[in-house]
């Protein structure tokens, strides 16, 4: 008996300590392969002066542009190399104006997320009803709806955004549609799961008094799944607020535009301000939505 047949005869076992060690070994090999190949291609460099750059960036990050509204130089002088005065700038006024722009962009981001989420939820609702197994929709329709939902879930919001910017032009409309089309897939999945986890006893109770299909839907299905729908809606809305902050990167409006601008001009102070706004907005919305979802349980 040669070695090959012996190997084939033994079923690979990944249980126990030995199996786990083997898994760790495979993982370590994969990591080593990634690192090794990148290093050989010379792609692992940290640039010419990483430490200096880091210190500079961190220093500017530590001073968000926000502070300039109060502490900025009211008469910053710009001079040419030979010392002639080019112009005088009031940093406080400039940053105040920029901050107002940031406020508008934040509002745009919230509008994109809100309308996009609503659009996604409305689009997903009929599809979820079709895909929920226990409602037994016609087979062909159910498959069609599932295919639509799977497709929309697997294409990233940014990809939808890039395509839509080409169709409807730059601006929030593209963002709203992108958010709506992508989150439709997630909504559909969550809604269908909510319908599938439905209590059939409640449905039968309503059917037992001779109620028609619409009456069964509104009296048994709807009151049971509505709280779950609201909870999923808040959850995805919350997610979309985070997602829509980067949509501006592709020209679909909102905070992302300011992020691109700040990074392109190396204005780390302004980027710091944008990030502070994002963190405050997202965690604020998180807290509110968690409260509401707990109250609905």
């Amino acid at each position, binding site marked *: 008996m040669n070695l090959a047949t012996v190997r084939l005869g033994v079923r690979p076992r990944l249980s126990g300590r030995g199996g786990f060690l083997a898994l760790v070994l495979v993982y370590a090999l994969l990591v080593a392969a990634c690192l090794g190949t990148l290093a050989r291609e010379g792609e692992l460099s940290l640039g010419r002066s990483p430490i200096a750059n880091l210190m500079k960036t961190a220093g500017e990050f530590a001073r968000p542009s926000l502070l300039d509204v109060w502490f900025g130089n009211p008469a910053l002088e710009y001079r040419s190399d030979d010392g002639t005065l080019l112009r005088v700038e009031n940093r406080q006024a400039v940053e105040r104006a920029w901050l107002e722009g940031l406020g508008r962009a934040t509002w745009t981001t919230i509008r994109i997320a809100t309308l996009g989420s609503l659009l996604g939820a409305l689009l997903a609702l009929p599809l979820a009803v079709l895909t929920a197994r226990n409602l037994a929709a016609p087979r062909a329709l159910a498959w069609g709806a599932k295919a639509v939902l799977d497709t929309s879930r697997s294409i990233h919001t940014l990809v939808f955004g890039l395509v839509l910017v080409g169709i409807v032009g730059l601006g929030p409309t593209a963002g709203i549609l992108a958010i709506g089309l992508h989150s439709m897939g997630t909504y559909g999945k969550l809604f269908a799961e909510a319908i599938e986890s439905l*209590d059939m*006893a*409640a449905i*039968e*109770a*309503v*059917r*037992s*008094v*001779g*109620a*028609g299909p*619409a*009456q069964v839907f*509104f*009296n*048994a299905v709807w*009151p*049971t799944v509505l*709280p779950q729908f609201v909870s999923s809606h808040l959850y995805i809305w919350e997610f979309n607020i985070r997602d829509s902050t980067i949509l501006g990167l592709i020209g679909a409006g909102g905070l992302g535009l300011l992020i691109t601008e700040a990074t392109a001009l190396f204005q780390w102070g302004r980027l710091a301000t944008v990030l502070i706004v994002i963190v405050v907005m997202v965690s604020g919305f998180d807290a509110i939505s968690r409260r509401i979802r707990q109250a609905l349980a």
Partner: protein
Amino acid sequence: MSACIDLYDVRCTLAGRTVLDIERLVVGEGERVAIVGHNGAGKSTLLRVLSGFTRPTAGQVSVLGLRLDASLPPARLRALRCEAGQVLQGLHLVPRLSALENVLIGSLGRVTGWRSWVRRYPAHEVERARAALATVGMLDQASMRTDGLSGGERQKVAIARMLVQAPRLILADEPTAALDPAAAQVICRVLGMAVAGKTLVSVVHNTTLLPLLAERVIGLRKGRIAFDLPQSQVDTRQLAALYGGPSVPVRDRVDEHFKRRQHTCLHPDASAGRSPCH
């Protein structure tokens, strides 16, 4: 007395197993019938056949003068269900709706269109529902969600719903399941009151409740009718025969069962392929 239920040569086969096999069963208008039998004897299946939720494999079923077969249009079946009220085990309520709203579901046969979709019931139906809740002694809990009610309270809500539905025939599947003896007595009284003058077919597990619920008792065994007697003639011997095979005294049966169980448990190899010890 006209026939309210008429079953002729009805058979139900589920996954190759015959769960119901009834040659003839006639229940007259206004009769109160209880169905007894051990688990899996076909009691619930019989009720589901009568409400049209399960279609028999063969045979003729007519309920309230309507033949239930494949050609029956859904609208007629729904119309029948308006007339044939069901009190199912207490879990058959919509958990997130209040007791009052659950009772109002009983009026869906009469309230149609958008009002029944948004649960805006006409004032006289709401009054009727409140009266029904008062009858079963649940008016104080009218606005409570039914998932916050106890088993007995839920059963009372289900009975109130049936009162609002006001059917001619009532099918009750174990109306006292999961209730303590005192609560079971109360529920049976309420049910007995509610069905006065109507036809009642109930599945009963607790045989001490038979006098409260029925004048006629039908014993089912392996899907067949084992006996069909006036309630006064049903005694413990018949019930013992129905539930436990040969009518041996209970004590002996327990001992025998225990011995057999010990035997199979001591020899696990020997019990392979047989029913496991439980």
